[in-house]
């Protein structure tokens, strides 16, 4: 609230048209979208496996998936540099393939996906675990293979949990700062996301930083509201008419 009280709304809106702001907004939206696509694409099958299979090393896998949740972002950034940086664990291999990650938009995407993924995967595991295994079995005996069963039974039944997890993950990814600035730096228009830009502008033009903060508050708040609405949403059904029908 204090963010909004300090400067007039007109001034805040005026700040939003500065190139540093629009560039950062674009970078943030683009990297977030790609990162979340990655999280959904890789996180969903991983979560389903972890939820439905019992195998050796499963606990370890769960810990690895959840690790970014408890890691300080700076440590995550160092870890990513150690893994993907030019002199890192996989750096040589990537170099040989002609891929340079450091200080590129791809690095931002990796940092955001890494830090935000556990918020989605944790929720997704819980959502998949809550699906009655008998419904899956019923679908199989009715002639549906694993894939069809997943898309027609498991996914629709888990959708609310998945949506909730994805909303949290998106919000966390949008606010990602520490790992991003360490692993991807802050090149305006390339790797400078909104949170990074806020940090940079804080030293130069406080009002601009304030405006960007206000923007993030609005976006995150809207996301939370959308999440609440999703969770309360029920598909329309004829009510009461059959609810207390006598057993015949």
């Amino acid at each position, binding site marked *: 609230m204090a963010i909004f009280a300090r400067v007039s709304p007109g001034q805040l809106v005026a700040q939003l048209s500065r190139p540093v702001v629009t560039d950062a907004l674009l970078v943030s939206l683009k990297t977030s979208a790609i990162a979340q696509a990655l999280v959904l694409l890789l996180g969903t099958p991983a979560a389903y496996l972890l939820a439905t299979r019992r195998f050796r090393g499963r606990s370890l896998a769960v810990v690895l998936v959840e690790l970014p949740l408890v890691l300080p972002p700076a440590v995550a950034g160092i870890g990513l540099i150690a893994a993907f940086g030019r002199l890192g664990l996989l750096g040589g291999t990537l170099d040989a393939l002609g891929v340079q990650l450091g200080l590129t938009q791809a690095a931002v995407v990796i940092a955001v996906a890494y830090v935000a993924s556990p918020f989605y995967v944790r929720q997704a595991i819980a959502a998949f675990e809550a699906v*009655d295994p*008998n*419904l899956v*079995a*019923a*679908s*199989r*005996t*009715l*002639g*549906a*293979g694993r894939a069809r069963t997943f898309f*027609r*039974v498991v996914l*629709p*039944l888990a959708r609310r949990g998945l949506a909730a997890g994805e909303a949290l993950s998106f919000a966390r990814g949008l606010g990602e700062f520490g790992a991003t600035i360490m692993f991807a730096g802050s090149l305006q228009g390339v790797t400078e996301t909104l949170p990074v830009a806020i940090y940079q502008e804080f030293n130069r033009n406080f009002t601009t930083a304030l405006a960007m903060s206000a923007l993030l508050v609005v976006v995150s708040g809207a996301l939370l509201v959308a999440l609440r609405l999703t969770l309360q949403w029920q*598909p329309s*059904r*004829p009510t009461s*008419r*059959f*609810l207390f*029908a*006598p*057993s*015949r």
Partner: protein
Amino acid sequence: MATLQTDFTLPLRAFALELALDVSRTVALVGPSGAGKTSVLRVVAGLVEPERGRICLDGERWLDTARGFSLPPERRRVGLVFQDYALFPHLSVRANVAFGAQGRPVDALLERFRIRHLAAAHPRELSGGERQRVALARALARDPAVLLLDEPLAALDTHTKAEVRHELAELLRELELPALLVTHDYEDAAALADEVGVLVDGRLRQFGSPAELVARPQDAFVASFTGANLLRGRARRGEGALTAIRLESGEDLYSVDEAEGDVGVVVYPWEVSVARRHAPDADSALNVVRGQVGSLVEVANRVRVRVGPLTAEVTAASAARLELAAGGVAYATFKATGTRLVPL
């Protein structure tokens, strides 16, 4: 009619389920809970892989562990009706039934199971009986070659149960499919199935028609499970061709079965008459047990009367005529020819 042949071993927590069974008409497996009944259905449906076994339907191979062959559940043509029905909560009744129909129209099935007016409803809005009809329609829409029913009547209230049992028996007769159903209730099994197997701790204790099981229960468990009275005693050769059994309570009973040593005396409730007075000179029944009248429970048009250690089944009219009341003294009589002896 096709025949489903099964022969498999599945280790469970406390024991191994071992079963060899041919199903061509309706077969019921009965047994106490935890006997492995549901596991049998899951093995046949392909939801659980047994340690060893073969399952085939006529010439069609479903499972052969010796050759490392196992057809996935979606390719075994079974219609499995789950105990809690497992209807898809996110789909309407029509979409539930159409799920396995592969595009075939389902209106005839909705009509047949009297659920057409519920086509747009969701499972949570249905009563127990309606849910069961949806589950049956859904299983049949898949065009199964074998029908598997898990406790088809257990989730229903008593009132609904009698009617559904009747409908289900009729349906099974009409379908002419090999059907395997499991239940913990012997009466349900006898009403629905042509053949009944008693499953205890993963093994078949006895297999036969419902009438055979009642006429010749193989052991004490089968006897009491099929609803018989079971008394314990010691048998010795009596006069004539009769075996005399001294009960723990000191009374003597007689049976035409031959036995010696510790035995279980088996008599079905409908073989037991109840009298207020005992008149040995006016009664052909040799066996008499005097006892206090316990509970009187009305079941349809009959009354189940507890006399001492025995349950007798008499008509409601007889119970009224005798003015039977809990706490009074009565005589339970039954013939030596209706008294079976089983090893304990």
